[in-house]
C-alpha cells in the first residue's frame, strides 16, 4: 500500500488544520487570489467561516416591493429595498446588520425570505437587487418560511428574558414581539442539562452561548473590523458555536483585547458587558442570570481583573515576561504598560 500514499506529500488533506504550517507551502497557496491594495489578512485570521461572494447589485436598479416601485443604488440587496417602504408583512431579517457593511450579510436565520416571480423564495438580506424584480412579502409561502425559521431560532435560544441583561434591548425579543410569537412551535430550551456554562472569565465581557443565535456578527466585528483575530466559528451541525482562534476554552484564555466590538453588535444576550449583566433583570432576591443557568466557567480568572487576556499580554510585551512563582508577577508586568 506504500505507493498509494505517494501523493500525500504534496497534497495534504485539508482537514489537517493548515494554520500552523508556516514552513510548508500548501498547494492551494500557489494560486491564492491576491488583490492589489488589499491587506493579505487570511494568513492570520482563521474565522472558520466561508468566503462568500459579493451578494450586492453592481448597478442601479428599480425593483417593486409589494406593488411599490423603488430605485436602489448600486451595491444593494433586496433588503435595502424592503427597508425603504412599508411592507405588507413584517420581514424580521433578524441576523442582518445594516449599520456596518463590513459585517454580514450572513443569512443564517432565513427570517428575511420574500417571494419573487423569477427566482421563487429568496433571502432578501443576501440577494442582489436585479432590475425589474417583483417582490412580495405577503405570500403564504414567504410568511410560513419566515415564521418557521424564527421558531427554529427560538428553539435554540435560552428564553430566560427575565434574568437577561439585554431584556428590552434584544433584537430577538423585539422581532418575536413584532411577529406576535406566543408559543414557539418547537418550544424553547428549558432543560437545564441542555445548557452550556456561562463564560465569566473576562472582567469585561460575558459569553452566554445559550443565547447565541450564531449570526456571526461578533466574529466579523472581531476579524473584519477590528482585525483582532480572536473569535471564530467552530464545530458543525448541532455542535456549532462561537469559539476562539487560539483554541482556548475561555475568553480570558484567548487573545482578546476587550475592545468590546463583539458586544455592541450582538443581537441577543450572548455577549454582554459584565457591568450590565444584571442591568435589565427583574429583581427577584437571590435569583440571578448566572444561577439561572447554574454553570459557569473561567472563575479562575475572576479574582484577577485585567484589561487584556494574559495570553495577549504575553504575546505583545516587548521584553520577555518574567513570572515570579511566589507573586505571579506577570500580572504586575502588564500594569506597567
Amino acid at each position, binding site marked *: 500500500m506504500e*505507493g498509494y500514499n*505517494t501523493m500525500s506529500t504534496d497534497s495534504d488533506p*485539508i*482537514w489537517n488544520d493548515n494554520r500552523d504550517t508556516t514552513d510548508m507551502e500548501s498547494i492551494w497557496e500557489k494560486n491564492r487570489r491576491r488583490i492589489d491594495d488589499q491587506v493579505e489578512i487570511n494568513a492570520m485570521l482563521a474565522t472558520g467561516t466561508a468566503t462568500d461572494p459579493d*451578494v450586492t447589485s453592481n448597478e442601479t436598479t428599480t425593483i417593486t416591493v409589494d406593488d411599490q416601485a423603488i430605485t436602489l443604488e448600486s451595491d444593494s440587496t433586496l433588503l435595502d429595498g424592503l427597508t425603504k417602504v412599508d411592507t405588507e408583512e413584517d420581514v424580521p431579517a433578524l441576523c442582518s446588520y445594516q449599520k456596518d457593511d463590513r459585517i454580514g450579510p450572513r443569512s443564517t436565520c432565513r427570517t428575511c425570505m420574500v417571494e419573487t416571480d423569477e427566482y421563487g423564495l429568496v433571502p432578501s438580506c443576501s440577494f442582489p437587487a436585479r432590475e425589474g424584480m417583483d417582490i412580495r412579502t405577503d405570500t403564504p409561502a414567504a410568511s410560513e418560511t419566515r415564521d418557521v425559521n424564527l421558531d427554529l431560532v427560538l428553539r435554540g435560544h435560552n428564553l430566560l428574558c427575565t434574568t437577561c441583561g439585554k431584556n428590552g434591548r434584544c433584537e430577538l425579543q423585539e422581532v418575536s414581539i413584532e411577529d406576535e410569537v406566543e408559543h414557539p412551535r*418547537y418550544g424553547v430550551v428549558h432543560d437545564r442539562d441542555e445548557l452550556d456554562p456561562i463564560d465569566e472569565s473576562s472582567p469585561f465581557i460575558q459569553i452566554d452561548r445559550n443565547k447565541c443565535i*450564531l449570526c456571526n456578527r461578533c466574529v466579523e466585528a472581531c476579524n473584519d473590523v477590528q482585525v483582532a483575530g480572536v473569535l471564530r466559528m467552530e464545530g458543525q451541525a*448541532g455542535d456549532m458555536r462561537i469559539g476562539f482562534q487560539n483554541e482556548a476554552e475561555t475568553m480570558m484564555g484567548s487573545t482578546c483585547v476587550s475592545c468590546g466590538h463583539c458586544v455592541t453588535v450582538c443581537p441577543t444576550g450572548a455577549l454582554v458587558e459584565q457591568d450590565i449583566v444584571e442591568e435589565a433583570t427583574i429583581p427577584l432576591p437571590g435569583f440571578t442570570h448566572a444561577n439561572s443557568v447554574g454553570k459557569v466557567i473561567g472563575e479562575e480568572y475572576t479574582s484577577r481583573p485585567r484589561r487584556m487576556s494574559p495570553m495577549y499580554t504575553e504575546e505583545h510585551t516587548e521584553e520577555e515576561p518574567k513570572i515570579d512563582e511566589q507573586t505571579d508577577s506577570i500580572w504586575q508586568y502588564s500594569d506597567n504598560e
Partner: protein
Amino acid sequence: MQGREVLHAAREPEVSVPTIEVGSTGARALEPLVMATHEGKTAFYPQCSLMRARDLVAALDGGSLPTNGAMAVTEHDSDTATLPTPDEGVLAVGCRRVLGACGWVVPANVDDYLTSGEFLAATAASRADEWLSELRDAGLRGRGRGDGSRDTPIADTWTTIQEISRERNSDPAVVVNANESDPNAEMDRLLLESNPLAVLDAALTAARTIGATNLLVYLNGEEDLARDRVGAAAAELTNEIGADIPIEAIAGPDEYKAGEMTMAIEALEGNHRLEARLRPPFPREEGLYGRPTLIHTPRTLAQVRALFADSGDQVGHVSGPGSRLITVAGDVETPITIELSTDDTLSLVKNAVDFDGQLKAACVGGVFGGVTRTLDVPAHANALTAAGLGTNGVVELFDQTRCMLSVAGHRAAFAEEENCGRCYPCRGGSQQLASMLRDIYDGEFNAEKIRELLRVMRRSSICQFGHDAQRPVATTMNEFESEFRVHAEGRCPNDTCI
C-alpha cells in the same frame, strides 16, 4: 486487494503471456474478475481463485483459450478499445457508453486510451466553438449533486464563464468535483479508478474551451487508489498534451457535506472548517478565489467526452441526452454500478442484482433521494424530478421487511449530524425533523407540522444539502404515511423497530 493477489498468482508461472491490471467494471460481485483473451476471444472468470488464475495463464501459454468454467466467452476485434461485453449476465444490463473502457484498459495508460480515439484536449482550442455548439444542440446536463450545473444544460455554464471572464478580465478555473461521499454513490470513484484519462481529458478540454488557467481535481482523502490513478493520469496528460494548464490533485475530507460545490471550493482554498457559501452569485460567476469556476463531476465529464468523441451523436432522452451511471444498492448482496440510457426506465436495475422477493420501495438519488414504490420512471432528470426523486445516481432497493419510518428516520438523523451548521432551516430544521420523527415512537405524530417544516427546509436552506435533506422524509410520508401512524400507536408493522 484480492485482485492484487490473483494478479500476483497469474504472474507466478514463468511464461510469456502478458498480464495486465485493469480497473473495476463496476460489477463488484464478479471480482476478482479475470479475463483471458486469445485471438479475438475473451473468457470471463468471475471470483477467480489463485489456482485458476495460474491455470489460465498456463493454458494461454500453451496456445489455447481456456473456456472451461467461464461465465461467458465473447468474440471481438482483437484491438477492441472497450470491454467485449457478454450478451447475458449483469455486465449486459443497460449500456456501456461511458463505462466501455472500464475494466478493459489499463488505467492511466496512454496507448490504451488512444485505442478509443485521440485526446480531445489536443484539438480543444481550435474546435472550441464547434464543440460548444454541439454541447448546446445536444442539451447535455450536469450530473451528480456536486456538479456546478446539476440537472441543467452545461453549455449555458460554459458560455456564462466565457462571458464573465472576458468582462472582468479574470482567468477561469476548472474543478473536477470527485469527492462524492454519499455512502452508496460509487460512480465517480469507478471512473477515476478505471478510466481516469477519459475524465481528465474531458476536463482539460473544458478548461481549454473556456480559457481556464487552472485545473483542480478535488478528491476524497480516503480513496487512495483513485488519488494514485488521477496522479498518474495527470502526469501522462501533461506529458502528452502540454503543461499550459497545470493539473493539481487535492484531497478533501471524507464527509458528505464536503461534496457540495461551494464547500468543495472552500476545501480547495484551504479552509480548516467547511460551510456553504451564499448564492447567487454562483461559483460559475464567483468561485475559487473569486474566479469564474467551472465545476463538473467525473460523471458529467465522462458524458462530455462521449458526446464529443461520437461527434455530437445523441443517445437517450431528448430533454436530457446521454446516459446515467447508477449504483444499485440497498437490500442486495453487493452493490453494482451500471449505466442506463436516459430513456431507459429505472426498473432495469433489478436485472443487475440478486434481489430476492418483492420490492417494497426504492430510494432514488442517494442518501437524500426520494422514496418510491415503483421503478417505472425514466432515467432522465426531468422525469426523476417530476416523480419527486433525486438525481444523484443511486437506486437503493428495499424488500418487504423494511420499516419505512426507520428508513426515513435514519436519513433525517444523517442530516442532523452531517450538516455544516450555517443556516437555521438546515441545522435547526434537521434537528427538529429528527426529533419529531423520534416523537412518533412516543405516540406523537403531527403530519402537518412535519410537512410544514419539510417545505421550509426545501425552500429556504442556503445550499443543496438542506434542500435535499428533507426529500427522503417527504417522499416516504407521501407513500407510507399509514406506516408512520401505526408506529404512533406503538406498533411497527415490520416488527423491526419497536
